[in-house]
């Protein structure tokens, strides 16, 4: 069992938790993920490590309430326990040697983009962060990003905060204004990453995308997380989760991510009834 030592609501549908897991905290690197199971009947879900504190022995996770499992997880409070918590899994993001990077995050994906931006900043790299959200209420980690970024663009779809528009609009502006990046790192909804990669391909800038497909074991056994990258089958859990964004077959990944949509909607509905709570 793994103790929840801190819980903080970042916005109405996104929650942060610090989980006591000293061995994992000792090893975790930005870009890696953990797998957790909320309770005995729970499913195994992957969540990318949002932060770690090697001294306190904690791992920070940030999750959006999208289905029954994240709803159940969100019902737990500080001092309570998660059944299973395993990691750090996957290959850490390659950040060494980069001089100037644009980090592009969307929605809850910003939770994963943040530790990478932080690490790059610490290594002396010039970091430009572009973060996008649907509206003002959903903005997360703005202060944190601000501290580790040489430039920060906050975008909202409806213009209720920051600048109105998509992250690709801001990124295009930066590139076209003459900013030269060694690399673009993007994390967020698949559709957003697809368009970021299309833009950077056009501009000839190397781009890494962090993928978060459906997984079960997360250790290279089930093959459920397979993606097509450069025409080859890759497993996100052991080969990734970071891949060359210009080689990923995003359309296939988008289709595959919808495999259990009906089940999730149904289960989520049941969970909501169970907790007698409205979830937006």
């Amino acid at each position, binding site marked *: 069992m793994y103790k929840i030592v801190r819980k903080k609501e970042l916005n109405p549908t996104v929650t942060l938790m610090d989980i006591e897991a000293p061995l994992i905290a000792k090893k975790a690197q930005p870009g890696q993920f953990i797998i957790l199971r909320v309770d005995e009947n729970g499913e*195994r879900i992957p969540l990318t490590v949002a932060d770690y504190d090697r001294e306190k022995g904690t791992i920070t996770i940030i999750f959006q309430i999208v289905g029954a499992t994240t709803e159940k997880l969100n019902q737990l409070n500080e001092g309570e326990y998660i059944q299973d918590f395993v990691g750090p899994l996957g290959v850490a993001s390659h950040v060494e040697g980069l001089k100037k990077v644009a980090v592009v995050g969307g929605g809850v994906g910003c939770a994963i983009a943040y530790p990478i931006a932080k690490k790059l900043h610490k290594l002396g790299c010039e970091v430009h962060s572009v973060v996008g959200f649907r509206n003002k209420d959903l903005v997360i980690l703005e202060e944190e990003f601000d501290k580790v970024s040489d430039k920060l663009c906050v975008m909202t779809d409806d213009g209720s905060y920051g600048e109105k528009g998509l992250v690709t609009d801001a990124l295009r502006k930066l590139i076209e204004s003459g900013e030269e990046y060694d690399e673009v790192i993007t994390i967020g909804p698949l559709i957003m990453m697809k368009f970021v990669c299309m833009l950077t391909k056009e501009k000839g800038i190397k781009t890494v995308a962090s993928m978060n497909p459906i997984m079960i*074991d997360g*250790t290279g*056994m*089930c093959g459920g997380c397979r993606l*097509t990258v450069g025409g080859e089958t890759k497993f996100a859990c*052991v080969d990734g989760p970071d891949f060359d964004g210009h080689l990923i*077959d995003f359309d296939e990944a988008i*289709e595959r991510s919808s495999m*259990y949509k009906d089940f999730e909607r149904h289960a989520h509905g049941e969970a909501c009834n169970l907790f007698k709570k409205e979830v937006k």
Partner: protein
Amino acid sequence: MPNMSLVKNKMPEQEPNVRNKNFKEVSLGYTEEQAIDEAQRCLNCKHKPCVSGCPVNINIPDFIQQVAQGNFEEAYKIISKSSSLPAVCGRVCPQETQCEQKCVRGIKGEPVAIGRLERFVADWHNAHDDGNVEKPVSNGHKVAIIGAGPAGLACAGDLAKLGYDVTIFEALHLAGGVLVYGIPEFRLPKAIVQKEINTLKAIGVKVETNMVIGKVLTIDELFDDLGFEAVFVGSGAGLPKFMNIPGESLKGVYSANEFLTRTNLMKAYIEGSDTPIQNAKKVAVVGGGNVAMDAARCAKRLGAEDVYIVYRRSEEEMPARLEEVHHAKEEGIIFKMLTNPVEILGDEHKNVSGMKCVEMELGEPDESGRRRPVIKQDSEFVLDVDCVVMSIGTSPNPLIRNTTPGLDTQKWGGLIVDEATGLTSREGVFAGGDAVTGAATVILAMGAGKTAAKAMDEYIKNK
């Protein structure tokens, strides 16, 4: 006077058309009377040919003599000297190619039902067990086992009995390896696996779940920081293989590992499990091994109307156990032999809508000695399915070899070991099971675990 019946006592079973709708165990096990009657078929041969067919050398005639006399607990003691998991092996060992194949009674008629008797003895013991075990005296040495599957459990059991302080590190949330994620409940009830693991815990074995060695701790850290003196790697089979034909990324295409893990480990078949599985109506399982049979029989139980086994050679070449093939057929699984998929077809939403196949015929023997299947001209047809399960093998998990310097591997990724001891190219690191051999059987993995346990004991004593 031995019982000279030419046939085995029949195993009581659930009716095929009842059991293919539930996940309860198919075979119900002998009664005491049936077991004694069957045991009396054993001739108690002096040269014990059956023992040489057993990968862990159980003293088979001795335990059977005890059964014949109704001394079931004595029989259990004899088996458990050689096997750490008798209730498991009695169910999943391919006895027909091991002990039973060597049985003298098999020359004329059927061999003694050694597997069924082993199962009976283990179940009898478990039903009458008071839970009291003698904890071995500690010898003060620490050993680590990576992977709580058959190889690791067997190795742990033997070392614990010798007094070692044994810790098993398991990557999943539950110990048992393939016994819990792969082999379905109806063939091996999970309560039995749990019971065997509890027995190991009772003699002092520690099981640490959620520990992915190579990630959270390396083998070097197990030695240097945690004081383990020897390590056994039983990390099992790894990444599933696909055929590399078009359509394998469609929704509704599973590896057998994923399909079985969702069903068994994550209990997708039980109402109330949070893990989803596709509600498929027509399922094709590609492959001819035991895993393919398990996947097909699970699919049927999950409610599929038509379930096909699609295999490119003929039934004769199928690697699955006869008993499994027989059970699958009884349950209504349709066998499409000499058939090979060439493409999986999808609808506009990228869901599986069919599988394009070709018919095959057998040509000249290949390197494996089996006749090579070749495509029959103009034989293409589409099998109407909405789900495809690929059960064509696995390649070893890269996590340990990528994080352990000095560990030599075969080109295909299997760890290289000395066969007599299980020693790898790293001092103090031993290995066995599928991580070494590639996909094989539970009992071979157990045998490898036991071999390594003996060698680890000698290694530590001579250090």
